[in-house]
């Protein structure tokens, strides 16, 4: 076995750039000679493909896929065709792509195949904090975990080498903190990788039961070979310390460990599947006390225990949430290895919470105002509009995963317990991602539901990426554009209507008609997002305070440009508009019963 894999050679004089983790990952993709790179956006992974899209078109195809499964399938196709291929997604995106990965792992690769999957410990912007390493173990796919931007770049290059050497897809796991930290990175050049061409081999490339049975034992052999590679790989680094305890750590946690416990012996695992190796065993045998510092699941800890060592991990460092230097320090203090820290706080102020809210002028606002008014049972979905769950809109009853809204509405309707009209609300990007099959299901099974497609012409939540419904590619070129009405009609929906999201009265009327229709009705709320891809600002409105009766009707919109002023009317707080924030959508003027809200110029 050639154990030289992983020795990156710097080809020319080092050139440095300040890069975010995600930009470094993208650089690694480009340097690796990748031909086809695909992603569906998702925080914290989104900037990877945006950055890949800045490298020359002649070098690399960079594209948005309709969802993560499609992204992985496209990458798999390119790998079959003999080119290096890449897909990026957030942790929950891997759930969507998992079906393909579980079979592809039996097949292996032709051109190298690498996935970057970004986990979100602390749930900064996700619906859960699952640990990708558990899914990777299920798929028996190697996982590399860089701990800073420099390693992010290098690990991607090494991942491609491992992928081709060991005939396996490889996952590079990032986390929010790594993806979004900027530091200086030494960059290299693009590798001149020549395509392998398609290799005809149905025994390997076509997974029918007879072939899959032959491939499974090879997977087990591959695991063994990888474990051997882990012994010599520079990715698993043993750093000697002066203390008598040893810490095994991975990813971003390594930086916290070095920060708070510079004296510890450290085994920094760059590869966390497979975990068990002779190197790990040797490290454990060399120290008096073994601690594992890893975010989320006790993957490494369990492996050490399985090897017969006594180890401390999740008893000291939480299994949930994001780590910080403080958490690592406190855990080591609990273990008696560091002095406890006294948290002397001077001023004990507990400022108000400041959750994210829909933007001033957000076109989603009117849909949820109307839903409140018709008193619907609302199945929500994932996007900016999920923010309508909080006060004052508070118009979403359930929300699970991308595309779930429509299927859930069908189930609620079929359960037959609901007296309220059942409405699914789903954004344009989410509808294309996973909303079409359940809509077909609703029509096929004759469910009595209303579907609101909230078409703001972008994938706003993740920062405004294009998708198949915008008519623009990742590289900004014009392309075919999905016509939502035609699509919806073609699957058999008989009632389809467009509404201008800034016309509250017609939104309300149309929604009422839609919910009165027996069968599947589709209402498309149509207005571009005011923030992305371009800021859309109309003339600001203002409130004539002498006319304001302080009824708080406009406050129901939750518009962040509207807040209380110091004056009162009949004991109630009057309101005012911050003209610097107002986007001029006019919704507040439409709900004001005393006509106090007017264009600022009037």
């Amino acid at each position, binding site marked *: 076995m050639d154990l030289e894999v992983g020795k990156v050679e710097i080809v020319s004089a080092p050139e440095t750039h300040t890069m975010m983790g995600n930009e470094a990952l993208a650089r690694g993709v480009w340097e690796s000679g990748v031909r086809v790179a695909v992603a569906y956006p998702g*925080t*914290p992974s989104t*900037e990877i493909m945006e950055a890949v899209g800045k490298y020359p078109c002649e070098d690399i195809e960079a594209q948005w896929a309709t969802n993560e499964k499609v992204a992985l399938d496209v990458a798999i196709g390119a790998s079959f065709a003999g080119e290096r291929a890449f897909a990026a997604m957030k942790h929950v995106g891997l759930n969507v792509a998992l079906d393909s990965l579980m079979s592809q792992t039996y097949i292996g690769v032709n051109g190298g195949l690498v996935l970057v999957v970004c986990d979100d410990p602390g749930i*900064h*912007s996700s619906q859960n904090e699952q640990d990708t390493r558990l899914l990777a173990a299920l798929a028996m796919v190697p996982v590399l975990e860089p701990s*800073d931007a420099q390693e992010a770049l290098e690990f991607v290059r090494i991942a491609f080498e491992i992928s081709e050497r060991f005939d396996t897809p490889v996952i590079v796991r990032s986390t*929010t*903190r790594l993806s979004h*930290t*900027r*530091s*200086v990175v030494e960059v290299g050049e693009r590798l001149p990788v020549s395509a392998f061409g398609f290799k005809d081999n149905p025994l390997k490339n076509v997974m029918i039961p007879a072939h899959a049975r032959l491939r499974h034992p090879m997977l087990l052999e591959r695991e063994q070979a990888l474990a*051997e590679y882990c012994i010599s790989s*520079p990715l698993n680094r*043993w*750093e*000697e*310390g*002066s203390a008598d305890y040893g810490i095994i750590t991975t990813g971003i946690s390594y*930086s916290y460990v*070095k920060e708070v416990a510079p004296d510890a012996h450290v085994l920094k695992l760059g590869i966390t599947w497979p975990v068990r190796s*002779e190197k790990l*065993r*040797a490290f454990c045998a*060399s120290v008096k006390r073994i601690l594992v510092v890893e975010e989320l699941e006790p993957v490494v800890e369990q492996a050490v225990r399985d090897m017969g060592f006594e180890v401390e991990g999740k008893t000291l460092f939480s299994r949930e949430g994001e780590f*910080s*230097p*403080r958490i690592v*320090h406190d855990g080591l203090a609990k273990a008696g290895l560091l002095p406890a820290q006294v*948290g002397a*706080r*001077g*001023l004990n*102020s507990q*400022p*108000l*919470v*400041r*959750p*994210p*809210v*829909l*933007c001033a002028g957000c076109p989603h606002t009117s849909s949820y105002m109307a839903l409140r008014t018709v008193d619907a049972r609302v199945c929500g979905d994932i996007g*900016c509009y999920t923010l309508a769950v909080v*006060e*004052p809109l508070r118009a979403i009853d359930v929300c699970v995963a991308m595309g779930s809204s429509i299927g859930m509405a069908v189930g609620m309707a079929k359960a037959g317990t609901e007296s309220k009209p059942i409405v699914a609300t789903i954004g344009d990007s989410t509808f294309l991602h996973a909303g079409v099959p359940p809509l077909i299901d609703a029509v096929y099974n004759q469910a009595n539901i209303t579907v609101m497609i909230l078409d703001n012409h972008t994938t706003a*939540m993740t920062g405004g990426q294009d998708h198949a419904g915008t008519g623009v590619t990742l590289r900004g070129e014009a392309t075919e554009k999905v016509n939502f009405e035609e699509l919806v009609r073609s699957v058999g929906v008989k009632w389809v209507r467009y509404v201008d999201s800034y016309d509250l009265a017609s939104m309300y009327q149309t929604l009422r008609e839609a919910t009165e229709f027996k069968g599947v009705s589709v209402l498309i709320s149509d207005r571009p997002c005011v*923030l992305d891809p371009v800021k859309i600002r109309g003339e600001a409105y203002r409130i004539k305070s002498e006319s304001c*009766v302080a*009824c*708080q009707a406009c*406050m129901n919109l*939750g518009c*962040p440009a509207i*807040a*209380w002023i110091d004056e009162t009317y*009949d*004991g*109630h*707080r009057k309101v005012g508009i911050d003209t610097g924030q107002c986007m001029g959508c006019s919704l507040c003027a439409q709900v004001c019963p005393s006509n106090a809200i007017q264009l600022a110029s009037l």
Partner: protein
Amino acid sequence: MNNRESLKADIPATSVAAERPTNVLIVGVGGQGVIMVSKVLASLSQELGYQVKQSEVHGMAKRGGAVFSHVRFGSSVFSPTILEGDADILVALEWAEGLRWLPYLNQESGTFITDTQHIIPPFACRDRGRGAVSGYTRETVPEVMDSVTNSFALDAAEIATELGVPKASNTVLLGALSTALEFPVAAWKSVISKFVPSKTIEANTRAFDAGREWALSFDRETQLKDWTDRTKQDPEKTTDSSADVVSTLEITEAWCKGCDICVKFCPERCLAMDARQIAILTHPDRCTGCRICEWLCPDLAITVHTSKNNIST
């Protein structure tokens, strides 16, 4: 197969302790330019030869949520984030955000530089009743100056507006920050010019100078007195006697013709039409007595009664 005995450390132990990096935490609200301030600082310290890590979490930031960015620089930096209680400088672009992050400031030696600007989220205006008090933070500038030794509270927005560049309040704060770090002024200015639109370089330079000037001529006693005087006029500090007023609704069913107007317009959504198409109060607990239904009912079928200390009006 490798022999276990042959496996030993890749990097032997060293005894040189790395110098402690400088920790600066920059906080504010989405859209204020927190990231710009932090990028300027990060790129400046990098140009001056330090190792730098700059970390923030994207995503919710632009939707009016809280934003924060850690900048750490020194000869060697590991963690991208700052240990609680270990920030040397806390720069806040918004008042309540500054208070939120105070526990991160080093209690003995930390410097707190904060804008006094209040950005009140819709969340703070939730209480709909009479005499409602904003949920925004109550601490005043003098209170904070009293408890945090090195604190500098400035109305950066006002300074920027006076200079005719209302959007440059973050550059004013950079000017103030420049007095707390030993970097050459010219280097600050040259880096700032790379991060602002070219048309606004001159204006931003003035904003930087103004912030720097303000911090250099800072006199604690004068500031304390000044802010104490201002705080005395804060209407939030006066209590509103209308808080204990109770409202009740009287609906004259015979006059109601079921037009639905009151139901549609009630801001608290506490009215509904019953099976007979007569308006009823379904959620008396939510009624704030705003009188919209009384004013809008075309048939005068609704009257709002208010009472205080059992005296009806």
